Each structure stands twice: as C-alpha cells, then as structure tokens.
C-alpha cells in the first residue's frame, strides 16, 4: 500500500498533471465527532473523517472557455491522473461556459504548509461527564433529555495554475437539547453554536431548560391570529437564513424572486424597511469567522468555479433598511450591472441603536407571545417570499411584561422581507444558532425582534 499523500502533495500533483489551459484543485479534509441521545441515554455516536479532491479544468477555444468539474473521495497517487483527465475531458465537451472569467491570480499564502486540522471524540472530554450528570438529574426529576453535540474541523486547500495556494481551516460545532416533561406535554429547547465545544456549559443549558419547562406548568390554549410576538435570535436566524439563500442576483434579474423588479432587473437600491436594519456577512466577524475567499465546487446561479480563490470581505446586503447587494458571481455582476459580491458563509442582522436581551423585549410587551424556534420552513409564494412553518418546543404567553405560561403551537405564514419593515423593537445582536438550518448554516449573529402582528395561521396540536 502506498502512503497517503498530504493535501498539498495532491494539489501539486494534480496541477503538474494538468494539460488544460487553467486548473483549480480543491482538497477538502474533514474530521468530525458526535454524540446523540434520547430519553436520557446515548443513542448513536460516531467519529468520521472524509476527504474530497475536486479538479476544475478550463479549456479555451475560439468560441470561449469551458469548464469541467470532477470530484473523487478516495484518491491514490495512481488515480490522480485519471481524475485530472476526466475533468479535462468534461471541459472539452461541455462547450463555452457563460460564467467563464480569468482564473484568480495569486501566490502561496501563509499557512499553506500546515496539515489539516483534526478533532476526535476526546473533544467531548469535559462535556461528557456533565451530560451524564444531566441525564441522571433529568431521570431523578422526571424529565427526558434529547440532544446532539457535534464538533468538526474542515480544512480546505485551494491551488490553481495561476499561482494560488490558499488554506482555510474551519472549526464548527454545536449543541442542541430538547427537554420534555415525563408526560411529554411540555417541551423546551436550547441550541448553541461553538467553534470549541469544550467551552459549552451543559449545566447552564440544562438549567435554562428547567426554567422553560417551569414556565409551561400553566398551559393556555390560544386561537390562530396576529400576535404581538417576540422572536429570540434563533428564530430570527431561521427566517433570515432563508432570505439570504434567496438573494441570488441572477435569479432576481431573471424575475423569479422577491428581489426582482419585473422586467426591469433587481430591487437593489430600494428601501425594504423603514427601520435602520442591516443584513451583512463578514468573514472576520467575531465568533462566526468563516472563509475569506470564494470556494466553489460547481457553478450555479450564485457560484462560479472560475471565481475560486476570489477574496471576500464584509458585505452589507441590506444597509439602513435599503437593499444594497445580492449574491453574485463575477459573471452575474456583469449581467446585473452590480458589484461582484460573492456569497459568504456567515450572516448577521443588526438594528441600529438597538440593545438588550430577549428578556428586555419581553418586559415591554403587555400581551403577546415569546417564541423559542421555528421549524419546517418552506417557501409558499416566491413573489413575496411568503414562508410557512411552525413554532416548536416552547411558545410562551407574555402578560404585563412577564412570561405567564405556555401556549399551544402554531403554523405561521410570514415573509421575512415584509417582516423587516414591521419590526416594533429589537435587541442587541449576538451569535445565534438556527434550529431549522443550523446544521447547514451554523454561523449567524442575530438580535431578538418584536413584531407587533406576527401571522399565526392555524393551531398545531403538536407538543
């Protein structure tokens, strides 16, 4: 058996083998470990490692430049040549790519020589005993705990025939816990993202769950309707991530999204909210740091393989309530006549001049609802970006500025775009973990929001 190659060796070997006009090689290595539990006992667990090598070949002829993308997971020195050739063969037959642009030029960045980051089950060293104690406490006190904790380190190596040698190491972790009363009638949830799960305070999360189940000792039935509603940062992330995923400039230009001006391009420049709302991404934002470059494994409306390695920097998608930018490739930026603002792997929302916590917002509500998180969010009407979904694991009644009990769940029909214009009050922005999308998109920073007329379309009997 041949010794496994390092990611750097794989990149260099592929580039040496390349006979194409241009070549980009991506090596993604990932290590992860997880624990999952239900009914106060662990159910599944795992440690995984994975590796994927993606080769992008570009071939020019008189009519333009084509691209071919082929990716393989198990590679050996002997199989790299067939991978590179397959990518070239694909490019040769694909015909000119609309998104073709010159490959990004550069040199070896510092850190290129570093090995890929690792994690193992050992990362749960301090967390495991605390979990065991939480299970025992839950059993004693008549609760059931269900949850999941995961830590991963993904390292991406990007090399190109134009000199780029870039490395990005992305630690990602999160913990989510659902607690239920023994009769399963009361349910509460907490979730938190953390680049370093050894820093997670399980005992504090457990105490928060106990507090919330306590709120639910009194359960009030409420009908469907429009409610003065406090959305905690997690629920705001549930809605804003979907909005972000809908911000493709190309799709808007085609006329197929809420950001389209039918027949006339996009709504960039249009005021979406009377409030001083900003929706932004920033690879350097504290606690939610992410790759400062474009990494594209395939071309799509908002990604171009030709843009691999393009630097990204803080981008305001919405600033002071006005739509400023959409998700772009260099190609779509030309089509739409807007700045080339590629997608970035984190998202933040800030409301200027707002500060304070969920509890502060609750204290200002006479009669209303406090949500925990949203679930099963799907697009109902792309024209308004009307989304449907449900409340889950804790809807609480607010009376005279205090939580007075729990309420049944609801199905909502709401547009996150329209909602930005109906913010009654907001708190400060802090790292938040989306229940609905966090496993795909864990890096968000959101404020709690108060919306005076959140549309609860019907009652859900789920508990």
């Amino acid at each position, binding site marked *: 058996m041949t010794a496994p190659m390092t990611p750097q060796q794989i990149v260099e070997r592929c580039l040496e083998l390349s006979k194409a006009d241009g070549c980009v090689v991506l090596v993604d290595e990932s290590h*992860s*470990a*997880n*624990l*999952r539990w*239900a009914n106060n*006992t*662990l159910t599944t*667990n*795992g440690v*995984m*490692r*994975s*590796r*994927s090598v993606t080769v992008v070949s570009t071939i020019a002829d008189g009519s333009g430049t084509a691209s071919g*993308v082929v*990716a393989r997971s*198990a590679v050996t020195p002997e199989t790299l040549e067939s991978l590179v050739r*397959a990518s070239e063969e694909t490019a040769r*037959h*694909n015909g000119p790519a609309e*998104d073709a642009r010159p490959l990004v030029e550069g040199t070896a960045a510092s850190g290129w020589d570093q090995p890929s980051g690792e994690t193992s*089950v050992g990362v*749960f060293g301090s967390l495991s005993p605390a979990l*065991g104690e939480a299970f025992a406490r839950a059993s004693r006190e008549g609760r*059931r705990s*269900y949850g*999941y904790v*995961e830590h991963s380190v993904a390292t991406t190596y990007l090399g190109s025939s134009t000199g780029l040698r870039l490395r990005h190491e992305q630690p990602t972790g999160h913990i*989510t816990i659902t607690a239920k009363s023994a009769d399963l009638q009361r349910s509460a949830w907490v979730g938190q993202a953390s680049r370093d799960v050894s820093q997670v305070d399980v005992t504090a999360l457990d105490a928060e769950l106990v507090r919330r189940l306590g709120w639910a000792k009194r359960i009030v039935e409420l009908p469907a309707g429009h409610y003065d509603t406090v959305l905690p940062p997690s629920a705001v992330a549930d809605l804003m991530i979907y909005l972000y*995923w809908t911000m493709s400039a190309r799709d808007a230009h085609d006329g*197929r999204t809420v950001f389209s001006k*039918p027949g*006339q391009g996009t709504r960039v420049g249009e005021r979406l909210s009377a409030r001083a709302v900003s929706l932004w991404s920033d690879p350097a934002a504290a606690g939610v740091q992410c790759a400062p470059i474009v*990494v594209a*494994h*395939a071309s*799509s*409306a908002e*990604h171009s393989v030709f843009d691999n390695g393009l630097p990204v920097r803080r981008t305001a998608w919405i600033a002071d309530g006005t739509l400023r930018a959409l998700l772009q490739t260099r190609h779509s930026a030309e089509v739409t006549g807007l700045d080339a603002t590629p997608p970035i792997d984190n998202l933040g929302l800030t409301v200027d001049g707002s500060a304070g916590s969920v509890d502060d917002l609750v204290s200002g509500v006479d009669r209303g609802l406090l949500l925990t998180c949203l679930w*099963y969010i799907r*697009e*109902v*009407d792309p*024209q308004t970006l*009307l989304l*449907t979904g*449900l409340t*889950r694991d804790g809807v609480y009644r607010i009376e005279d500025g205090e939580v007075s009990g729990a309420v049944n*769940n609801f*199905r909502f*029909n709401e*547009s996150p775009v329209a909602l930005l214009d109906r913010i009654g009050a907001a708190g400060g922005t802090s790292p938040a973990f989306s229940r609905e999308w966090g*496993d795909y*998109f864990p890096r968000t920073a959101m404020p709690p929001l108060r919306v005076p007329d959140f549309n609860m*379309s*019907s009652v*859900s*009997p*789920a508990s």
Partner: protein
Amino acid sequence: MVPDESIPPVRSLEPRRSAAELRRSATVESRTGYARRMPTDMDATFLALPMRALGDAALQRAQELSVQHADFRLERIRSQHISLRDGRLEGTHDGEDVGFGVRVVHEGTWGFAAAVDLTTDEAVRAVEQAVEIARTAHDMSPQRIDLADEPVYPNRTWTSAYRIDPFTVTEADKIQVMADYSRRVLDHPRVDHVTAHLGQVLEGKYYADTSGTVTTQQRVRLHPVVEALAVDTAGGGFETMRTLAAPAGRGWEYVTGSDGVVHWDAVLEELPELLTEKLAAPSVEPGEYDLVIDPTNLWLTIHESIGHATELDRALGYEANYAGTSFATPDKLGNLNYGSPLMHVTADRIAPHGLATIGFDDEGVEAQRWDIVRDGILVGYQLDRQMARMMADTLDTSRSNGCAYADSPGHVAVQRMANVSLQPADGGPSTAELIEQLDRGIYIVGDKSWSIDMQRYNFQFTGQRFHRIENGQLAGQLKDVAYQATTTDFWRSMAAVGGPQTYVLSGAFNCGKGQPGQVAPVSHGCPAALFRQVRILNTAAEGGR
C-alpha cells in the same frame, strides 16, 4: 438551497405506468421474481475495490475486541448533477464518495467510525475507534443494545432494475438532451426563462457482519426536471411550472423517454400553455372545498403525514431533538383510526423502480412489504433491528422489516423510510370519474411547497396547478392556493379512492433526517383520491399581497 453546490429541490412526478407494471407492484409480496443478477452486472470498478480484504480485517479485529456485533459497510456513491439555464450549461458536478464505516455493539453500547483510505490498517483503526467511542458512550448509555435476529445471507448480490447506467452516457450527450428539452419550452413566446436539472446517482454497497451475512448491491436513480418561468411585466407578478416526471430508480432510458414512461414531447409541449393559463388565472377564494388530489401531489402528503408518522424511531422519541416525534405512538397500534375505511397503506422495499427499493438493508435484513394502515386503522411501523427487538411484545413480531439505511459510507445507519404507498381501490374510478362527483371543488396536480409540524399533525401544501371543478367538469386554473389540514381529519375525509389506472409512483431524492443530517431517496405510490371539505388558503392574502 445550500449555498455552493445547489441541489435541485425535491420535485416531481411520473406519468401513468403500464397496467402490467402496476399489477407487479401491487401483488409482489416478496423478492421472488426480482432480477437477482450475477455480480458481472455490477460495475467492475466498484467490485475491484478491496472490500472483502478490508471487511475481513475489520470484522476479525472487532472479534478480538470482544464485540457482540460488528458490521462493515463499504460504499461507492457516484453522483452527477447537471444544471442548465435557458438551454445553456450553468454547471456540472461529477462526484464520487468512497469509504467505509464500521459499527460495533461493545458491552451493549453502539460505536461507529468511518474512514476513507481503503487500507486494512485504516479498517483496523476504524474498528478500534468505534470501540473507543463505545467505551466513551458506555456510562451515558444505561440502555443495553440487543438486535433482532435475522437469517444469515452468506453471499448475496442484488441490482436494481434499469437498462442504461447513466454514468455510461457522456456528459455532453446528457447536456444535449436537457438543452433540447429546455429550448423547446423556451421557444414559447410567453416563457421568459427555463431552468433544467438532471441528478443521477449510482450506488454500490458492500455489507458484511459478524453473523456471516455478506451482501453486494448496486442501484441507479435519476431525476430530470425542466421548469419554466413567465413574468407578467405589466402586472408585476410571475409564475413557474415544472415537469412532473418523478425521480425514479430507472436508467438513462427514462430521460430520453425510450422506455415509454414519460412522453416528453407531450410534456414539453403542454408546459408553456399550462403556465400561461396559470399566470392569467384568478386568485382562489379561501374557504372549504372538496378536492380531487392527483397522485403527483398526494404522494408528498403521504410522505409527510403517514411515512414519517409511522417511523418507530420517531414514535419512540429518538428524533425528538431534530426531525420530531409522532402522534401515532405505539399504544395506538391496532386502535388508531388514522383515516377513512377506504385507506390501505403499505410499506415496501421491493417496488420496481422505487427509490427505497433494495435487496438488503444496512443491517443485513432482506427487503419486505407490509401493511401500515389497513381499513383506516394503524397496524404497522417501519423498524430496524434494535427497535424490532426492543418493541417485540408491542409489535407482535420479532423481526426487523428492513428500514436501516445510511446515506453514505461516513454515516451510521438509522431507520429510514420505505416506499410508503396508498393502495388503489380494485375496480375504482378514474380521475375523471372522481371529478364528476363534485359540483364545486379543486383538482390539485403536482407538488410544490410542503410543511408539517414535528408531531405530524398540522400540514400545509401547495401544488403546481389547481383546476377549478364546476358541475363535475374542469373549469380553468386557479392560483395562490394552499391546502391546510390535520393529518387524521384529512385522511378521515377521504371519500373515494381511484382505481389502479390512476396509480403513480412518485418520490424524492432528498428526504432529510438524523443528526448528523442524512438524506435518503424514497418513493410513494398512490391513486388519485377525493377529499371532502378541506381548508383552502389564499397565499397572496396570507402574504399581504
């Protein structure tokens, strides 16, 4: 919707199947009669992987470490995705995921480890890691794992039913077909833009366990979609409509139409006309309506409100922190009035071309077919070996029905959905005959938006097309329609079930479940059916438009 590598959304349906095919799927009770092909039919490059050497090394090391059970699963998943915009190539991705996973029961506790380098050293190391994590987990796992018995299958092979492996067709040929389909739709003056996607998967799987079962399997699936967009520049709105050809366990012949399953010429010709009519259609008046729901829409309602609700791991709370639980708890087995007496729902892993169809599951359990709802009463669940043993008394069976599945070599097998299907009524009515029964109602075709609560009660669905029914006849399209109901109310309102001639197998590639998240392909067959007095919302009004 994940940035980077966009996956085509869950979509689509397949046109009517032949009567002969239908009879096969309705009557086959075991795997008998299925092509049990020789390994020579399998992809030679998959069979050339050192699966046996690694598997033997892993299971031997596991036995040295005194496990009660160990299984070794090596997989190679070839995938290719092609997307086009207005008939031009937008992007392609050709991927291959090879690796293996080892799962052990050590001192009554699960441990799982996965790796990618195909060496015996790595296989041994993965076993040691799996045992290590089982030890770490032991003190937090008061429950001891015990697996239901299953016969030993010493050396079995299985391949799915298809003619042409799409990975033997050049990417250029595939792009050409999808570009041609796109242009035919784009040529219509009212169509502004056309997107097209073609997803394809070739799954090779080797499984071996310490009881002596060894299986080698291969299956193919693909999903072609063409979607048209029409923009109303004057009115400010827009509408889309897409083809209803379902994702299917079929070969390239399904995409070209040479197998006669999808009549692409007709499908592509009618799409722009239907879209134009929809763009100009009146907005629905909200209220309660009688509905005839086409199988191209109803399959997704079955998936959400029956398929997931009868997964026993959900009913037992294993998914309480993620996918959710179920209202259909084991104490209701045999006594829950799930729906009207017309309701007969089966689960299977044997339907020809079904996306959940397989020879053996990822615990070495042979594929089966069984009842989920009979005469409107809940009578069965979807199981794996651990749950089958644990719940044997309640379930009155001591055998798994073969629902363990891992979506990739790096993930542990969890209970995943079988093909859960509503059976047609023998000699039952055609779709037209169902429509004739209504003075006023809506005929719903094609799936679009879907959402259901975590206990599978409250759901809301939209569709591709909504045809107004007046005096037993279709009377033009409506738009802005969604139907909303509670699972048992809805199925109890089912007043008529279509005959076998209305039965269609639909499905999705991307059913999500588990932590870490896994996606599984699954099909659902159903006839057209009639439902009384279902709540209809106007989605424009809901969105304040």
